[in-house]
């Protein structure tokens, strides 16, 4: 079975010599919940932005369901969803107008979109606020809206940058449940996080990035063994 996401020798160089990502290789398969961890400025967001086709990159190849992000970006985006760490949504639209826009882009019919929006808006308890302007939303509400918009077209791959930041404990729990649900259906999830406890409990695979290089990766069992992810993370950060 071909992987949903395949990053091969991905390198991003800023300016003259600053390598934000250096020869990154990883594979995410259907049903994986893949955690991407590293300290601030390690290269997580740079990698994620390249995966979703927002950022151009210097070397390597990124394939989504066999399609190249570079040469078939629209095909890739049709089956991908992206939730940025700080979603820049259209502040002067209402929540429902924004969701309608995303549903229109993905050509989701009226009945289907109504069903999905209702399901997730109820789960995140923001149904009552969908008629309000996004500018009146709190950070957490915007994050919830961005999550709903990412789920609207049932993507094969969901890419999230720090998805738990700003979410209240209940919403974080709901998101984790949704992630499990989706992964059981075969959706692949690739997300960055600083919350190692969450990563340990949620992910079946994990990669640790430092200075733009993947310093360790594999299944959670392989990587952690009898230790905690936090211990492993701190050890490899100090060693390499």
């Amino acid at each position, binding site marked *: 079975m071909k992987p949903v996401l395949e990053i091969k020798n991905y390198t991003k160089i800023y300016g003259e010599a600053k390598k934000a990502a250096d020869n990154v290789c990883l594979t995410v398969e259907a049903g994986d919940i893949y955690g991407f961890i590293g300290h601030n400025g390690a290269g997580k967001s740079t990698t994620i932005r390249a995966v979703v086709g927002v950022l151009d990159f210097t070397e390597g190849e990124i394939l989504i369901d066999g399609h190249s992000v570079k040469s078939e970006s629209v095909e890739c985006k049709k089956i991908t969803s992206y939730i940025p760490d700080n979603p820049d*949504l259209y502040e*002067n639209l209402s929540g429902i107008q924004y969701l309608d826009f995303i549903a229109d882009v993905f050509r989701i019919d009226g009945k289907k979109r109504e069903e999905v929006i209702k399901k997730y808006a109820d789960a995140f308890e923001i149904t009552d606020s969908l008629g309000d302007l996004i500018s009146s939303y709190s950070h957490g509400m915007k994050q919830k809206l961005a999550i709903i918009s990412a789920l609207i077209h049932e993507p094969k791959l969901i890419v999230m940058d720090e998805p738990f930041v700003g979410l209240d404990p209940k919403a974080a729990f709901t998101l984790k449940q949704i992630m499990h649900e989706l992964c059981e259906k075969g959706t692949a999830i690739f997300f960055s996080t600083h919350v190692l406890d969450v990563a340990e409990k949620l992910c079946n695979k994990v990669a640790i990035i430092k200075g733009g290089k993947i310093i360790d990766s594999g299944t959670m069992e392989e990587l952690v063994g009898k230790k905690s992810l936090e211990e492993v993370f701190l050890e490899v950060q100090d060693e390499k």
Partner: protein
Amino acid sequence: MKSSMVLIKNLLLSTSQWNIYRLCRDKKKKGRIIGNFIGYAFLYLMLMAYGVFSCIGYGKMGLAEVIPMLCALTISLMAFFLTLFKTNGYLFNFKEYDMLMSLPFEAKTVAGCKFLYMYIKSLPWNLSISLAMLIGYAVYAKPGLSAMCLWLLLSFFLPVIPMLAAAFIGYIIARISAGFKKNNLIQTLLTFVIVIACFCLRFVIESLAKNGRIEETLTDISVYLSKAGKIYPPAGWFVNAVMHLKPGDILLMTGVTLLLFELVFIPVGKAYRSINSKLKSHAAAGKFSMKEQKSRSIYNAIAFKEFRRMLGSTIYMTNAAIGELMALLLGVVILFVDVDKAVSTLTRGAPVTKEMLYPAIPLIVYFCIGMVATTAITPSLEGKNYWIVQSLPISKKTLYQGKMLFNMYLTVPFALFATICMCIAAHTPLLTSLLSVILSFCLCAFSTVWGCVCGVKHMRLDWENEIEVVKQGAAVSIYILPNMFVTTGLIVLTVFLGTKINRDIILGILILAVTFLAALSYKKLSSLAA
């Protein structure tokens, strides 16, 4: 095609004041939207009145046949320059780039839709000029119904070619500057170079059209305008289409516009992601070492923050500093030209001497300097970061004073430089020079405070794109348009009065009047800050 429509519809909806009005529950905000709407309607009418009156002028001089060309050139020039200043920010380096580019749109579609959005937003202004000039033309030239319908139809096409040209130049600028670490600064400098080159080109074209002769004014305008159609063919196509109903020119106008639209976005689309990636990436050097830190007064700290804010945004800087740049150029150039000849050329041979222009010198400088006041922009430009200054232990008045101090730092040196240079070049008497310098300073102060009143009164923090504040904001429009019209009127009035009464007295009266207006504006600002 369908995805383009979805995107354009969404871009328009997301910046629609009507949508905010409909959905907003804050009554104050609703009131502000209505106020802005009335302000815009007033400005719209002013622009139309200007168009109608200038056509009446041409009509009464028996030059009704030049109105179509004048309309084509006015709209084309306006569309070109306004787009040039907006390209970075609308086409490139915009806030929601990540969100849009992660959706299944071709890069070419995003760029094309952003352009069309820019076009649709500027359409009411372009059509107001076109409609006003059509009214003037209809009164004096009495064209047929088909010509009037064609005029209206082709008015939709008129701004597209210059806008495409400006967008393409903007693309080249973005592409070049993307290769530099300080891409903002490079973009600003290149934009300024293009603007200056365009102004120089205008004089070259004008002199070519005149073939070195300074003819009698009326003939001169007629000859110049008729030659402009050869230099800029789309204007000629428009004129031939509406005056002679030539089908070939109608086809050329529409066909070339559509073809260019397709062509321009091929290279733009190809390089779109690469350019935006570079423009939006801020690589960290990670080599900072702590040096001795300087402390500043609160006012200077705010002014310095404003300075850094300006340097960080190409859109803001190109719009805010263009007046200062023009004043600088004016000051330098005037020292090297024959003032008598320049006056004669600029007034197209009208009986105006340099002595008659003495009291107008500070106003001419102010025409450049007062074009934009940063104080009209910066209150809104705080946007989502407004909480930072709000949470500081300073009053609103202190904040505004800091913002005003920055505008004074920015404008006064350039205004004084240009005024002194003009006084030297025109050999003005010492007292007149002194009064001119004082008036220049007073005008800077007035512009600063009046700009701040407009900026605070029409503060809008919920913008999506800096352009909504810098170019399209109600504060800027309400500051700039009356300011420019009144300054133009004052220049004419002072020149006229200068022939009747002592020029130093005129300057003295102007100093008192401007100081009074500045004080009045400051009082208003104090009440707004309370």
